[in-house]
C-alpha cells in the first residue's frame, strides 16, 4: 500500500538469451556471458530494501555504488518489513540492506535498554552481520499534524496534545505496538487520547490531508511532510530514540564491496535524504532519485559518527492478551459476518436473475467476476477516497461484501440452471405460479449449491478480513500487521492462529448448517 510498491516490476530482468532476433549467435553470446560471469562472480551481490520509499532509495544508492566499483549486483526492492529483510540477510538470500539503529536495538536485538553504537556493532558481529557507520541522517519517529489545525489549537509540542484528548489519531500498526511506540509515548507524555485507529502509513497521509484523522506518526525524513505542509510536533521530553540510517551486510561480503559501502558513511544528511525521497515520490523512479545523490556527491566524505542517545520508554499500560484477543476476534467476526449477510441478501437475487441467462445474466456474472480479480488491497485503496467510505469499518465491509458476491451469485445461478428439465416441466405443468415454483421447488433443490457458495464466501471473508487492519478497521489483521513490521513472530501468531481457527470453525458451522437447511430428500 505504500506508494512505492508498484515499482517492484520497473526493473525488468534482462537475461542474456533475450537476443532472440539472432537466435544462433545469441545462444553463443549468452553461453559465453553465463560462462564468464560464472567464473568471475559466482553470484551477484544482492541488495534488499524494505517496503517504503526511503528504503528503496537507499537500496538503489548501495546498488549503484557497488556496481560503480565493478562488482555484479542486483537490488530486490521492497521485500517487506524488518522481519523479512533480517531473516533474508541472516539466511544469505540478500547481502546488504539499509536499516536504522533504533530498529536494530528494539526489534532485532530485542533490547529495551540503551546501547552505544559500538555495543550494537558488537552484538551484530556475534551473529555474523556487519554494520556501517551512520550514513548521516536520523530518521526518527515524529508526530505530525496539519499546520492550519495545529495553529488553530495552539499545539506546538507533543506535550500540548494533553490538552486535546478529543483529537483523532491515526497511527501505523508498527507504531501502535512498538516498544518505543504509542503506548510508552502516551505514558511518557500522560496523554489520554481516546480516538486512536491503526492505519497504513501511506493511506494515513491521505486521511490526514482530508481531515479524517488529525494526528499521525511519521518518519522525520518523509517527503509528504513538506508536500502536505505538515508540522512536526516538538519531542519536548526527548522520547524518541535515534534512528541513524546504516547499511547491514554479511561478513562473507568481499572486502572490496564492504569498503565501497563504507564510502557512503556520513554522506547523506536529513535535508538531502528528504530531497531524495521527494524526488523518488514525485517521479516514482528510485534509480533516478539515487543518481541525484551521485551527481552532488562525487566522492564520499569521511565518517561522521553520531552517538546514540535514546530516551527509554517508561512503564507500559498493557491491555491483557485475553481482552485484546476478544476485541480482535469479535471485530473480525463483525466484519466478516456483516459483509457475508450483505453478500447473501444481494447475491441470491442476483444469482436468480443470472440463472435466466441472456444479456442481464452475462452482465451480472461478468461484473461479479471482475470484482473478484481486483486485488483486495487495490479494492480497499479504491474505496477509501469515496465520500461515504473513508478509513472505516464500512469500507472494509463493502470490500468484503463485493468479494463475497461471486461465489454466491455463481452457485445460485448454476444450482438453478442444473435443475433437470423434467423437474422444471413438472413444476410448470402442475400450475404453480413462477414465484411459488422458485420458492417451493427450485430454491430448495438448488440449496446445496447455494449453501456451498455461501460457505466459500464465508471462508474467503474470514481470511480477507485480516486486511481490514490496513485501513484501521481492526480485526485479527492488527497483530499480524504489527508483527510483520516488528519482526516479531509471536505477535504474528497471535493473529494468524485465531484467524486459522476461525476459518475452521466457520467451515464446521456451515457443514452443520447443511444438515439443517438442505432438505433430507437431497441428502439420501
Amino acid at each position: 500500500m505504500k506508494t512505492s510498491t508498484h515499482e517492484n516490476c520497473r526493473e525488468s530482468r534482462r537475461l542474456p538469451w533475450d537476443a532472440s532476433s539472432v537466435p544462433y549467435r545469441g545462444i553463443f553470446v549468452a553461453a559465453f556471458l553465463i560462462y564468464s560471469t560464472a567464473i568471475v562472480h559466482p553470484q551477484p551481490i544482492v541488495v534488499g530494501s524494505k517496503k517504503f520509499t526511503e528504503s528503496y532509495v537507499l537500496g538503489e544508492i548501495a546498488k549503484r555504488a557497488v556496481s560503480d566499483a565493478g562488482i555484479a549486483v542486483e537490488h530486490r526492492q521492497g521485500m517487506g518489513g524488518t522481519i523479512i529483510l533480517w531473516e533474508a540477510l541472516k539466511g544469505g538470500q540478500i547481502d546488504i540492506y539499509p536499516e536504522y539503529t533504533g530498529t536494530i536495538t528494539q526489534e532485532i536485538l530485542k533490547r529495551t535498554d540503551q546501547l552505544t553504537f559500538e555495543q550494537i556493532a558488537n552484538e551484530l558481529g556475534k551473529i555474523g552481520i556487519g554494520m556501517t557507520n551512520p550514513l548521516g541522517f536520523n530518521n526518527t519517529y515524529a508526530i505530525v499534524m496539519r499546520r492550519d489545525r495545529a495553529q488553530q489549537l495552539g499545539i506546538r509540542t507533543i506535550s500540548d496534545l494533553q490538552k486535546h484528548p478529543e483529537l483523532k489519531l491515526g497511527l501505523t500498526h508498527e507504531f501502535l505496538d512498538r516498544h518505543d511506540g504509542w503506548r510508552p509515548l502516551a505514558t511518557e507524555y500522560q496523554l489520554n487520547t481516546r480516538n486512536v485507529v491503526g492505519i497504513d502509513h501511506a493511506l494515513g497521509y491521505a486521511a490526514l490531508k482530508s481531515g479524517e484523522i488529525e494526528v499521525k506518526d511519521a518518519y522525520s525524513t518523509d517527503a509528504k511532510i513538506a508536500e502536505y505542509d505538515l508540522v512536526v510536533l516538538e519531542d519536548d521530553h526527548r522520547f524518541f530514540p535515534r534512528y541513524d540510517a546504516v547499511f547491514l551486510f554479511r561478513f562473507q561480503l568481499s572486502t572490496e564491496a564492504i569498503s565501497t559501502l563504507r564510502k557512503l558513511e556520513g554522506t547523506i544528511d536529513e535535508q538531502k535524504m528528504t530531497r531524495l525521497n521527494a524526488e523518488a515520490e514525485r517521479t516514482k523512479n528510485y534509480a533516478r532519485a539515487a543518481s541525484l545523490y551521485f551527481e552532488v556527491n562525487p566522492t564520499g566524505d569521511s565518517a561522521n559518527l553520531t552517538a546514540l542517545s535514546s530516551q527509554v520508554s517508561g512503564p507500559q499500560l498493557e491491555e491483557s492478551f485475553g481482552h485484546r484477543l476478544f476485541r480482535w476476534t469479535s471485530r473480525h467476526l463483525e466484519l466478516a459476518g456483516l459483509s457475508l449477510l450483505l453478500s447473501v441478501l444481494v447475491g441470491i437475487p442476483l444469482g436468480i436473475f443470472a440463472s435466466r441467462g441472456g444479456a442481464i445474466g452475462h452482465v451480472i456474472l461478468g461484473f461479479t467476476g471482475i470484482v473478484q480479480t481486483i486485488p483486495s488491497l487495490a479494492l480497499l485503496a479504491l474505496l477509501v477516497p469515496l465520500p461515504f467510505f473513508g478509513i472505516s469499518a464500512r469500507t472494509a465491509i463493502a470490500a468484503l461484501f463485493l468479494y463475497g458476491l461471486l461465489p454466491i451469485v455463481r452457485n445460485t445461478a448454476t444450482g438453478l440452471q442444473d435443475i433437470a428439465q423434467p423437474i422444471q416441466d413438472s413444476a410448470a405443468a402442475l400450475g404453480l405460479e413462477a414465484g411459488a415454483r422458485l420458492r417451493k421447488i427450485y430454491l430448495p433443490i438448488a440449496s446445496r449449491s447455494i449453501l456451498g457458495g455461501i460457505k466459500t464466501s464465508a471462508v474467503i471473508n474470514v481470511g480477507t478480513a485480516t486486511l481490514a487492519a490496513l485501513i484501521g478497521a481492526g480485526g485479527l489483521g492488527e497483530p499480524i500487521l504489527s508483527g510483520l513490521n516488528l519482526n516479531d513472530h509471536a505477535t504474528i501468531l497471535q493473529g494468524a492462529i485465531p484467524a486459522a481457527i476461525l476459518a475452521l470453525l466457520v467451515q464446521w458451522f456451515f457443514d452443520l448448517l447443511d444438515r439443517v437447511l438442505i432438505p433430507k430428500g437431497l441428502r439420501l
Partner: protein
Amino acid sequence: MSALVQLIDVAKRYGDAPALHPTNLSIEHGKTTVLIGPSGCGKSTLLRLIVGLVRPDDGQIIFDGAPIAPDKIDIFRRKIGYVIQEGGLFPHLTAQANVLLMARHLGKPETETALRLSELCELTRFSKNLLGRYPVELSGGQRQRVSLMRALMLSPELLLLDEPLGALDPLVRASLQRDLKEIFGRLKQTALLVTHDLAEAAYLGDEIVLMNEGRVVQQGSIVDLREKPANEFVSEFINAQRALVLT
C-alpha cells in the same frame, strides 16, 4: 361425444426443423387417446403444446370450447394432470408432499385432501406405508404410481401421460398397464397417452393416432389401422411391431 380438446391447424418448428406440421386433432371426453409413432415424430411436442410448455407458432388450441388464455395458463394447467417418463417427482419432497403439493398450495382443507390421498393410494395400489419416503427411496414403478397420484390429485379434466411406462422393466410395466386401464375405466378419465409401443397403444387406447415426421398419418381403432392402413408407412409400422412380438 364432444371434444374436450381441439387442435386447429396447430404447427410448431424448432429453428428450421418443423416439429409439427399444421395439425388438426380432437380429444374426446371420457376416452383414452393414444399418440404413437417413431422417435421424433412430434407426439411429445403435441402433448407439450397442450399443457403450454411450448407455444404454437401457428393455429389454435381449444379447451372445453374456449381458446387457452396465455395469461391464465397456471390456472388452466390445474385442470390437467401431467405424468412423464421419469416421473418428474421433486426430490426434496416425500411421496406424500409431492402428491399434496398443489392441494396445499391452493389451501384445500386437510380432511378433504387426506381422504382424496387414501382414495388415490387404493386406486393406484400404492402402499400408504411408503408415503413418507423420498423419491430416491422408491422403485421406478412406485415412483410412477406417485407421479400418477400427483397428476390425479385435483381430479383433472384431462390426463396427459408422456411415455409413463417407458423406463420400467417388462413385469412392472405389464402390471402398471393393467392398473392404468382399470383407473381410466373407473374414473371415466379423459386421457392422452404417448407411447411408441403398439401393444400398449392397442391395450389402453380407445382411439389411436399414428404420427410420422410431424404429421398425423392415420387415426382410428387398432383394427382400422391393421385392416385399412392409410399408406405404406402404417402397414410397415404395424408389421414391424408385430414381427417383434412373434419372434
